[in-house]
């Protein structure tokens, strides 16, 4: 079944067959899941070779989810990589990895953060106390404190759209077709096929989080914490603090 943005049909004939080589969640974690349809296991494959760094996904996410100014649920990190005398631009769309063994879940002291049975990690912002523990625990810097709700915030795979049979906003708007969303439980889905055949990578595999956002064509230098020269421009609530010398604060 094709889960690309051109032909997306949710919930129809999803077979409860796991994709090859993907680990099952820990038993206690699986037992704690609630909501969502266990017949599905939503995932995203990002083909970075197709990403042009237009940030349309970033903007679509902000518009769809009313993300406050200077906060981001997803962003396309952009790097200039020079290797062997050849320079190129590398894109890396970042978002919540909706990990199978998500480290943000056990630390939550109120249960506001939980994983649905379809694998989507969500935050109930009517329960969240804004303690920020999950923000610390996420190895991907995917979470932040929303200044308007004063609670933890993150990508939800646009769960409200997925439940309505739509694609996440970032996938819907991606001009290069770099973001592919679908059901890993459906062996015929595009994401299942890509995971089976393209041997995609995940970010920070050493953390043991078992992410469900996969990358095709990922530069190994960008897999973990990037060692390089800091960004020349970063979206920030404090635009005045941009001098390079001011970037280091211990």
């Amino acid at each position, binding site marked *: 079944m094709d889960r690309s943005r051109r032909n997306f049909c949710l919930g129809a004939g999803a077979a409860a067959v796991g994709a090859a080589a993907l680990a099952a969640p820990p038993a206690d974690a699986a037992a704690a899941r609630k909501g969502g349809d266990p017949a599905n296991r939503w995932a995203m494959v990002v083909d970075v070779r197709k990403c042009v760094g237009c940030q349309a996904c970033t903007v679509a996410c902000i518009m769809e989810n009313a993300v406050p100014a200077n906060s981001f649920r997803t962003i396309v990190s952009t790097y200039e990589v020079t290797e062997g005398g050849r320079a190129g631009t590398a894109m890396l769309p970042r978002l919540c990895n909706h990990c199978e063994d998500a480290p943000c879940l056990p630390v939550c002291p*109120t249960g506001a953060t939980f994983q649905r049975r379809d694998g989507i990690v969500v935050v109930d912002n009517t329960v969240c*106390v804004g303690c920020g523990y999950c923000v610390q625990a996420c190895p991907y810097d995917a979470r932040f404190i929303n200044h308007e709700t004063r609670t933890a915030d993150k990508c939800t795979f646009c769960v409200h759209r997925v439940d309505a049979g739509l694609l996440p906003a970032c996938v819907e708007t991606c001009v290069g077709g770099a973001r592919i969303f679908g059901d890993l439980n459906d062996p015929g889905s595009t994401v299942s096929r890509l995971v089976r055949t393209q041997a995609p990578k995940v970010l920070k595999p050493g953390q043991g989080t078992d992410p469900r956002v996969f990358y095709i064509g990922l530069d190994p230098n960008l897999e973990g914490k990037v060692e390089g020269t800091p960004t020349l421009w*970063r979206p920030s609530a404090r635009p005045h603090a941009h001098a390079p010398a001011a970037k280091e*604060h211990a």
Partner: protein
Amino acid sequence: MDTNIVEVINVTREVAWLPWAVQYFFLIGLSVGGVLLSLPGYAFAREEWRATGRVALLVALTCGLAAPVALLSDLHQPGRFWHFYVVFRPTSWMWWGSLIIPFYVAGLLVYAWTCLREELREHGAVDSRLAPLYRLAAAGGGRNDALIRAAGLVALAGAAAVVLYTGAEVAVVRARPLWNTPFLPVQFALTALAGAAGLVLILNRFAGADRAVEVRVNRVLAATLAAVMAVGGLWLALGLSGIEPTHAEALGSVVGSEAWRVTAVWAVAATAVPFAIALARPSGTGLLTGLIAVHSAWMFRWTVFIGGQSVPKTGAGFYEYALPAGPDGLLGIAGTAGLWLFLLLVITAIVPTPRRPASGPVRAAPAAGRAVAAAE
């Protein structure tokens, strides 16, 4: 092959644990240290430790009562604090903390009451309009070493639980290599004890300047700072040797930063200097060693929390941090310090620090003069 990467666009994540958290970990640590320093004199009735214990008890009480306010303020939704108490979340150290804090503070209050009961009874015996209230507070009793010991052991259990949960809460965060080390709980505990000894030395200077207390606590401070340096040295050795990948990664994430190198030199100096002074001249230097030790304990927590959160988990370089002037920054720090000072004034007004050992007779003093006497 040489690879050079320039990060052109990425996101800056703001700190999620604010300076309020620094204040909490600082104050609760000092409170625990105060409990530990008070135990020999009170719970174990060692008379030579009694005067030290009296000042340490003041440290434990003032810091222990101010700390939960700072913690509550660090929640972005403080009005929802009760959400902790309607769920069972044993996988979260913070949830355990929500149980441990009330246990610790309640135990501390009971322990302090048993320790101060003798003074309350003596205040109730003088001709004063407040005497009936003091007699009521003393509940008709005086010094009861068995009760003090029992309450002290409960307070010790609470203190141990606080040390365990505050250390584990941060050390389990695998996503931050700087925090994810078994050394961190030990470092929190040792620097807390050093900070508490420092605050005892400062308060002792302003409440009678008891030389015996000064020498005793300076020696405790020197021993604690020696342990702080030993543990810090072990952490550094593990990071430099590369034997343990997490420590090597932690060191590697900051070693290239000029700001972090300056911070490291500063931290070493703020530990080694009071250690040397306290060891060489334990008498007459209490105010100086105390101030540096308190500064050092606070700075350690600032570096761990604010500095630690400025290290991106995925991006290059460091996140920017500028201390806001408002409640989430400078005002929060000043406000917490103000709350601590207020508590100090209130407690020393109600039970002024005796100029002689607590077991001796207490001079009756007008209520208005007590705070002044205590603050002298």
